[in-house]
């Protein structure tokens, strides 16, 4: 049986907006085994992004627990969770969020530098990851010189740089056209075939259909 990368049990997450309290997640339980490719779908505001943030240790639940590679995130400090994310979690955002003054190579190098990977090694590894996402000819281009699809592939390369146990992608095709979205899906499938574990929150039914399995989040609850 595959090792469980991340497991969430009975998660709730409340937010305060002014005087009112919003419950974004209501008792969600989920387990992501190694090598999984899970699509999380659902309407806007249903709690997909919140679930991803909790699985990645970006946010902390109001109640419930998240166990990442056997470690309960509730017992970890902010710094420990940041270190865990740096080494074990790759994040891909809808709007790429690349640093505009850095080249593609430097953007991918950044998490490696933060993880204190030696300069030569991190340069070689960043170049290899960019080659893996078919951007070997764009290493020294800045985000402003790249298309949306290319930027998202740089962002995916950045997420893969530290060879994480889990890649979380929040609406990764939300800013892309259909053809480019298909390229991103193909890339995810290829990465997954190579052993990368992926959880993708998306509205894109074509992307969701391309995943190994899918769950739907509606009003903070999962519908299998």
């Amino acid at each position, binding site marked *: 049986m595959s090792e469980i990368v991340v497991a969430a049990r009975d998660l709730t997450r409340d*937010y305060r907006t002014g005087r009112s309290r919003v419950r974004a997640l209501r008792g969600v339980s989920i387990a992501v085994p190694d090598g999984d490719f899970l699509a999380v779908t659902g309407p806007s505001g249903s709690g997909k*992004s919140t679930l991803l*943030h909790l699985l990645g240790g*970006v*946010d902390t639940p109001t109640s419930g627990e998240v166990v990442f590679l056997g470690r309960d995130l509730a017992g970890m400090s902010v*710094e420990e969770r*940041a*270190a*865990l*994310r*740096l*080494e074990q*979690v*790759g*994040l891909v*955002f809808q*709007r790429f*969020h*690349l*640093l*505009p003054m850095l080249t593609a190579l430097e953007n991918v190098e*950044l*998490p490696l*530098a*933060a993880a204190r990977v030696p300069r030569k090694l991190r340069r070689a590894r960043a170049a290899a990851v960019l080659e893996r996402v078919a951007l070997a000819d764009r290493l020294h281009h800045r985000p402003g010189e790249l298309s949306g699809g290319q930027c998202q592939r740089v962002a995916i390369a*950045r*997420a893969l740089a530290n060879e994480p146990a889990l890649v979380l992608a929040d609406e990764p095709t939300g800013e892309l056209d259909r053809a480019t979205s298909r390229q991103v899906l193909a890339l995810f499938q290829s990465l997954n075939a190579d052993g990368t574990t992926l959880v993708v929150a998306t509205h894109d039914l074509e992307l969701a259909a391309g995943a190994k399995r899918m769950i739907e989040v509606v009003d903070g609850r999962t519908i299998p």
Partner: protein
Amino acid sequence: MLRPRVAKRVGKRVLKRILPRRCALVVSAASIALSTWVPLEAHAQECPTGLEVLVERPFADAAGLTAGSTVVMRSTIEGEPCNAVVAGIFEPPPDPASLNTTRPRVLFHLPHLQAMTGRGNEVDYFTVRMRPGTDLAALAADLEPLLPGAQVLPVSEVAERSSTTFRVVSRFHTAIAVITLIAGGVFLGCIMILKVQERRLPIAAARLTGIPRRLLFWWTVAEAAMLSTLGGAAGFGVGVASSAVVNAYYQRYYDTTLVFSQVTGAVVTEALALAVLLGMAAGVFAATRLLTSDPLDEMGR
């Protein structure tokens, strides 16, 4: 280091008179008194024989005088006109105090001047160059009792007393510089905040991916310091160029060799140090604002 000189002020008023003719000439005893001060008895005004004068270059140029020209000199408007030969033209020493004066300077031999003015026993001041190592304070203390009514001062103190106007001007310059630096610092701070605002989302994303705040903080500060150093270097270039333009313009305007603007090593060092410090302060301010917020809030949660 100041040359060891002692200045001495003797007697009443300075021997200065505006002489007749179209261009008034100022008679100054100071320069010639350097070497030929001799106490003489008072006598009637008269034209000395073989009267020779030196004329300052800008006036000579304006009046078309050359060495060998003849000019008419009077000690007062009613004084006896005396023919004088221009023995030479001299370049006036650069002196900010004389920039706005329209009175040209002419140098006389002291006996000639005394004869023309009839004030043979009066000398305004003279300077004495001392051998290196002379104790000026001790010498001044020894000399003053011997010269009743006289003041013996080191040249540095004479310069200090005569430059109060320029000290005031200098304070104005300092005030302007301080205001400019404060305004520049605020401007730099605004630029840094704007730059940081532009990167709010990528920096928040970087924090979410686990890149330590410390790294992002020092990165922002280093970038601000680099930006301000580059700005400082550009400012240095602009300063040198502006200084050259100011000097060229005013030296031509006032027809002088006086240096109006100087970019010294000390000024450059202070300016660059201040620029880097201000840049780092702006970077710290901007980075603190950026990194104390919740990255999820920045991303719109």
